[in-house]
């Protein structure tokens, strides 16, 4: 059944891409969405089927133009297929309605075709079974994402963002090519199975690990390789942003696990330590920068950096515990990382779709111009609220289940009798806790300023609820956020099967029941989100009933209290800037904000103010510190290379001749 499902999904995406080129308008949009939806559902079914039955799908096509094209679905691939399928299905549905307002303004052909190509490449990516297939698909994925980011090409900042993305992603790609060249010893069409058995020296293994970390880290948006992410993800069409943030960056996690855990079979403890450290820094800095953002989608993009950090905390701890010979804890760490991967795909997809709905209805992403949308777009608001609670790791939603597992894993560090772990793990726990606390602050801001109180602009006041297809897309993910949150007793065993299929970790039997208990030595925490959810609902309803019976039922509608002032205007509300102000002060050393205050007084008396203008900006200074030297070196190198490019045909012919001669000499020499 698996080959049929694979064919079905490829056929779906291909049909969607072709339909985008062939049809226009409403029909075109519908066919694009139908193709993408069919393809992603088939992807989802393929992943679920492989994971449930443990079947391994192998597909090789030596007759294809790229010789050595090989696919293989093992349990880890199957899990990532599920991630791809889930987020893509919701995004496709949503995209049907969302792309309507692009009709006539931007190229729907390019959008529809590239969207399907991106989904196809994502599906093939996790199935790739040799270096060549992996790298070619990787590049197709990066380039299709590049074209999608460019969709709104005439908006300010879009081209710049796309260029940054292209540059950084190719730097990472170069590192990946190098990593696979070393790993495969030059034979790019050799299967992954051959790589697994090859014996490398520790030095080579370390080199491969570091190259892979750089390559996959750029894709995952790990700090300090994240600069492109908050630029590129917000400017893409929202359903594309959902796929970019929900799935594409997860390929970094997939690649890292595939190479370090599967192909290399784990390594020394410092590998895990580095991944853990990068994860902790990304988690904290990601949310800190998100707090200062007032562009709704940029805020979400920074939160992707944060959540990749949380995922890497789990994966890094897993790698570390594996090398310390604590397989049960290692499994726990990897499970936590994978669980959060799936959860993040759902709630971040949902939030980007919600932000897209806001943009669709109000034409702006600036939170300072929004407000009051909960009354005008009640369904979008409710969906966004669920996403916000889930990403803030509030029980009983899915973000909490996976963060709880990450916490438990890190606390398991108490079992490692080494001073660096004994000091490092509590700090990692603290950074994770701080970032999740700040995420709550950030999403109170994001939801509160965007959806609550009075509208701060006429566009926000005129907003209307979005079309049904967009609502359905969001509702699908809302359902997943709740379902994944209350059923860890189903999800965790499935994830341990996904890991067990790799055969790299000796699978320790973990007793599962209705709860999330771990009979792992040193880590015995228990919780049951399902019972918690039921309990919370019961207590809430009970309170409401008791209140109805015993308390006074009168309710009067009045004005918001304004110290006696009558009439409430949006200017009296707290703004997003004001909301984040206390935290900006607390972390002033990190933000180094620049402030610019100009007051225009009345000429007669300085007690009368005509106007006040206040500007404040936060500059990520360490990015400048890091990237300015690199950029100037690149520019210098480019200037030097330009000298060779004289534009004269004779000169180029001479270059060709010289190159040919040199090659001949080298070939002769080496024989």
């Amino acid at each position: 059944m698996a080959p049929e499902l694979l064919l079905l999904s490829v056929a779906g995406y291909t049909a969607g891409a072709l339909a985008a080129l062939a049809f226009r308008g409403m029909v075109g949009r519908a066919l694009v969405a139908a193709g993408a939806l069919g393809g992603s559902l088939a992807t989802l079914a393929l992943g679920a089927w492989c994971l449930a039955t443990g079947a391994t799908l192998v597909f090789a096509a030596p007759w294809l133009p790229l010789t050595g094209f090989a696919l293989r679905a093992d349990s880890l691939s199957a899990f990532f297929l599920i991630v791809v399928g889930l987020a893509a299905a919701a995004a496709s549905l949503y995209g049907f309605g969302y792309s309507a307002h692009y009709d006539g303004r931007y190229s729907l052909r390019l959008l529809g075709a590239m969207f399907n190509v991106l989904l196809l490449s994502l599906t093939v990516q996790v199935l790739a079974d040799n270096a060549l297939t992996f790298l070619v698909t990787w590049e197709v994925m990066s380039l299709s994402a590049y074209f999608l980011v460019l969709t709104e090409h005439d908006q300010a900042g879009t081209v710049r963002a796309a260029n940054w993305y292209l540059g950084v992603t190719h730097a990472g790609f170069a590192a990946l090519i190098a990593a696979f060249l070393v790993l495969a010893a030059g034979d790019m069409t050799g299967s992954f199975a051959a790589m697994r058995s090859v014996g490398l020296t520790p030095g080579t293994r370390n080199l491969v690990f570091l190259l892979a970390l750089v390559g996959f880290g750029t894709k995952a948006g790990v700090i300090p390789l994240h600069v492109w992410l908050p630029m590129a993800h917000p400017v893409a069409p929202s359903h594309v942003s959902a796929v970019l943030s929900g799935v594409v960056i997860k390929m970094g996690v997939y690649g890292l696990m595939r190479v370090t855990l599967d192909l290399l079979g784990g390594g020394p403890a410092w590998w895990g330590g580095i991944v853990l450290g990068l994860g902790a820094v990304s988690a904290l800095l990601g949310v800190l920068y998100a707090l200062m953002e007032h562009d709704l989608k940029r805020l979400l993009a920074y939160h992707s950096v944060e959540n990749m950090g949380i995922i890497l905390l789990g994966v890094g701890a897993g790698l570390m515990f594996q090398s310390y010979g604590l397989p049960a804890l290692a499994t726990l760490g990897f499970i936590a990382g994978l669980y959060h991967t799936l959860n993040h795909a759902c709630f971040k997809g949902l939030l980007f779709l919600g932000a897209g709905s806001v943009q669709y209805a109000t034409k702006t992403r600036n939170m300072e111009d929004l407000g009051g949308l909960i009354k005008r777009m009640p369904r979008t608001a409710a969906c966004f609220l669920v996403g916000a609670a889930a990403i803030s790791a509030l029980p009983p939603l899915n973000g909490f289940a996976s963060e709880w597992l990450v916490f438990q894993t890190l606390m398991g560090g108490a079992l490692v009798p080494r001073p660096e772990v004994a000091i490092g793990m509590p700090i990692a726990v603290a950074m994770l806790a701080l970032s999740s606390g700040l995420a709550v602050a950030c999403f109170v801001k994001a939801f509160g300023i965007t959806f609550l109180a009075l509208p701060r602009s006429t566009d926000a006041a005129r907003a209307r609820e979005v079309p049904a297809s967009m609502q359905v897309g969001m509702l699908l993910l809302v359902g997943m956020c709740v379902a994944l949150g209350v059923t860890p007793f189903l999800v965790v065993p499935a994830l341990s099967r996904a890991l067990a299929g790799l055969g790299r970790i000796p699978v320790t039997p973990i007793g599962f029941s209705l709860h999330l208990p771990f009979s792992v030595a040193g880590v015995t925490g228990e919780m049951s989100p399902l019972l918690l959810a039921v309990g919370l609902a019961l207590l809430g309803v009970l309170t409401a009933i008791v209140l109805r019976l015993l308390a006074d039922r009168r309710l009067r509608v009045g004005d918001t209290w304004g110290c006696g002032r009558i009439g409430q205007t949006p200017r009296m509300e707290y703004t997003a800037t004001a909301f984040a102000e206390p935290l900006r002060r607390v972390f002033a050393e990190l933000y180094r904000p620049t402030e610019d205050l100009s007051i225009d007084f009345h000429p007669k008396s300085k007690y009368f103010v005509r106007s006040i203008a206040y500007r404040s900006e936060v500059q990520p200074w360490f990015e400048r510190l890091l990237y300015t030297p690199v950029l100037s070196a690149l520019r210098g190198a480019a200037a030097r290379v330009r000298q060779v490019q004289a534009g004269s045909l004779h000169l180029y012919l001479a270059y060709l001749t010289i190159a040919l001669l040199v090659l001949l000499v080298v070939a002769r020499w080496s024989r």
Partner: protein
Amino acid sequence: MTADLMMAAAQGLLALFLAPGVVGLVRWLKARLQNRRGAPPWQPYRELRKLFQKEVVVSRHASWLFHLAPFVVFASTLAVAVIVPVLAVPLLVDRIGDLLVVVYLLLLGTFFLALAGLDPGSAFGGMGASREVTVAALAEPTLAVAIFALARSAGSTNLGEIAARTTADPLSAVSPGHLLAFAALFIVMLAETGRLPVDNPATHLELTMIHEAMVLEYSGRYLALIEWAAALKFLVFFILLGNLFVPWGLARALTLEAVMTAVGVFAVKVVVLAVAVAVLETRVAKLRLFRVPELLSASFVLALLAVTSSFLLR
């Protein structure tokens, strides 16, 4: 099992109905310490009864979230009160949630209350919400690391397990790790429940306020729910401090005698902690808002020392 569940329900109800009294007791003790006569400790019950009998006034700009939030806050705090060990350990409810769940359930209440503060569009609400989430976020690392310290010596984050291990090894209660973690949690308790020196529970119209500004738009039965939940949260921290660090007196078996002893010991613990808070609140002045992070980082350092000391000393 039935007895077990009944015990959990009874614990939750006991905490619920005791909570306003504890707040009243602290107020009365403070008044006495400051040479005032003060309202009797049962004054908060009268206030709650009064609020439940009054009509609710809701801003015309508020949405459904404003009506939902009091129930979420009350239910989540009550759920915490059911989970934490008030009188007996270990109970089956231990398996529903551990210490991390307690922390995040309280955060769930904060999340909704802060949103409700922003909902009517008043500047006071926004200010209070902004400050409340700031303090809550900065208190998070201390809480997590203090939990780590407790989990490390007990080998578990389960509440019943932690209490049981400390009882089994009485010396661990006076180990540096435990003492430092206790101090850290005490400071966090002051911050999380809006006590001096972080917030002043006695003022309503001062720009320094945090919690009271956030709930300014609430009235009638909604306000009653929120006030009651706040009192319950205060008591929950007392329970955590009293029963996790000094677990003696908790009933290990559900016999009448053991439970009665537990009730007595629990009352003593609550009074001791109430006196401590009252004395502290009389002695210290409120900190400026931007000095609060310093206090919280101090508590974080204590918690970090608590974890590392248990590594160094083992």
